């Protein structure tokens, strides 16, 4: 059942290192209880993603990936973290999130998710010596870690951070699977993402305004 991987781009130490940084920063965000620290983790996550895209652009010489890498730096490493940090400071400040699960247990769960992601991706795509072999398992693992952050946190902003990590992971899959989609599509996707985060930040503010804090477990008035 192994699928032959495309031999477009060999994996290299640079790619491996950046993929590792990508995954570690996602895990760092999952381990944080302070909002601003998690935003910083997301910023490093985006920087690793942008560098990966730039590496692919250098190796393939494709101009549209170079532009996409620049957009990733501008949008995901600067604009979105700035929006998130502003939302965090404007509201309750840099508060501590009380997760449903302690940090050691959460780390254990994330470790298990990473193991599952790596083994299952290997089973589907097989071993390989290309960029896919480095990036695809990392992408799947980061998706799972991001979803875990979304379900294990109370604070609205922490859930947004989980969501943007999932989106970064899908972007990584796009870069490593297809070397990025057509430029117009990439730009539209990033624009939508930026608007989405701005909107989520707006609603975090509304939640704080209407109930005094941003504990999403208290959003339970609508039922049935």
């Amino acid at each position, binding site marked *: 059942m192994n*699928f032959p991987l*495309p031999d477009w781009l060999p994996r290299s130490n640079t790619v491996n290192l950046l993929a590792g940084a990508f995954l570690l920063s996602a895990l760092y965000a999952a381990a944080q209880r302070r909002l601003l620290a998690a935003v910083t983790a997301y910023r490093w996550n985006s920087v690793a993603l942008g560098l990966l895209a730039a590496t692919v652009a250098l190796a393939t010489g*494709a101009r549209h990936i170079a532009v996409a890498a620049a957009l990733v730096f501008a949008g995901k490493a600067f604009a979105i973290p700035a929006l998130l940090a502003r939302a965090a400071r404007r509201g309750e400040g840099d508060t501590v999130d009380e997760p449903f699960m302690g940090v050691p247990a959460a780390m254990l769960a994330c470790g298990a998710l990473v193991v599952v992601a790596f083994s299952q991706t290997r089973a*589907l795509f097989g071993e390989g010596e290309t960029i896919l072999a480095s990036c695809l398992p990392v992408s799947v693992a980061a998706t799972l870690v991001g*979803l875990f952050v*979304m379900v294990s946190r109370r604070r*609205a902003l922490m*859930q947004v951070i989980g*969501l943007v990590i*999932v*989106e970064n992971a*899908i972007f990584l*899959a*796009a870069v490593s*699977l*297809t*070397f990025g*989609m*057509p430029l*117009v*599509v990439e730009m*539209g*996707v990033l*624009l*939508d993402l930026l*608007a*989405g985060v701005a*909107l*989520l930040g707006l*609603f975090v503010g*509304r*939640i704080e*305004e*209407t*109930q005094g804090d941003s504990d*999403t477990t208290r*959003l339970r*008035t*609508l039922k*049935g």
Partner: protein
Amino acid sequence: MAWLAPLLLAAPLAGVACALLGRSAWTPRVLLAAAAVELAAAVALVARVLAAGPFTAANGWLHADALSALLAAAIAGVTLPCAWYGTHYMAYVVRRDDTDARWAPGRYEAILLALLACMLLAVSANNLGLMWIAIEGGTLASALLVGYYRRPGAVEAAWKYLVLASVGIALALLATVLLYYSAGRVFGEGGRALQWTQLRDAARALDPRFVKLAFLFALAGYGAKAGLAPMHSWLPDAYSQAPTPVAAIMSTALLATSLSALLRFFAVTAGCTGAAWPGGLFAIFGALSIVLAVPFLLVQGEYKRLLAYSSIEHAGLVTLAIGFGTPLAIFGGLLHLFVQSFAKSLAFLLAGTLGRGAHSRRMDHFGGVLEASPALGTLLVVAGIGLVGLPPAGTFVSEWLSLAGGFASRHGTAARLALVALVVVFLGLAFHWSRMVLGRPREGFADPLPRGSHAPLWALAGAVLVLGVFLPGPVRSLIEQASKVVRP
């Protein structure tokens, strides 16, 4: 391009105009004029597609076939009456100076037009990436509208909707990437590999494992947006908290948009793996949505939440009918998607008048509508028979065709299950409706809106009833051609 330009440009231009006009008597008029232009453009597109067949425009970015034309007609066809009713309703909300409606003037109209523009772009996009961008844009616009009122319930509903829809749309992006990957191996890099027309024609050459993976993610992602169970939990909250005209548009036009994305993925997957595999998944999730909605429909106390669960049921029925895979069932499913839009938007718009008149959201506070206002009572009855699919409503024909096609398919059990569920829904809604329509009117109940607000409701009621007894030739051939798009 000339045929699509007015369809795609009227709404965004009018939206900018509304944002600039702000508080002016012209703002609602611009909204209505734009909605009317969109309807005319959609009808023109239908005529063009029927006369000269499908066409691709704008360098392969746009594509109009019978499915796009049908959905554009449905979207524009319900948005015009909803916006028309909305001018009366929103004027009432603002005039009463609800403490919770503090929006800048013109912003409601501008965002509604942005939503309309995104929906029309999504159904006429040929590039799957462009379709994704349009659907995500529509999600953001509709989330803003769901949070129109600043009360805690609306904020909660908008938050849930935004978070769940964002996760769904992220999965849909992954589906798009996977399909692009499998197509890139056939076409090479470049925009062509994302074009739906190319993917459809080359479906056989795609790698079935990636196409299957892509279909699963698309089903979860766009299915969450369409409100298919079990990804539906945001839907009753969002529909019940959104302003009434917005809820009516979301439950009909936006639902049709999300389903159209699913149908595009379905067509490619069916071409690649054969229709049995994606059809089986459609049948499972469709039947699950119908069955899951039934208990909530029976015990529901709030009128708008009842309609929301009815929306889940109808989305399930359309998905199930496409999953059956017989030509009759697919025809019935698409007809149902078209006709239920008119019935459901009528029912939702009535929620505005009744709820504001009775100062309550609960159905047991709506008693005796027929005696209090014969016109509203009649409209409510039409909406009711439209929702349950009784003759002479058009939904009777479409449900009957869907299930008849289902009995002839491999999924006979699912068809029987759906039939039982529909009968139970009928009994439940008959109970709710008899309490609302009959009996003694509640004291102090009065229609709070001017008489002019009835005109769009009568137009929708007329559409529901006429389509039940007479299916015009062009509509019929359009749906026949659209079935061939879904399943060649």
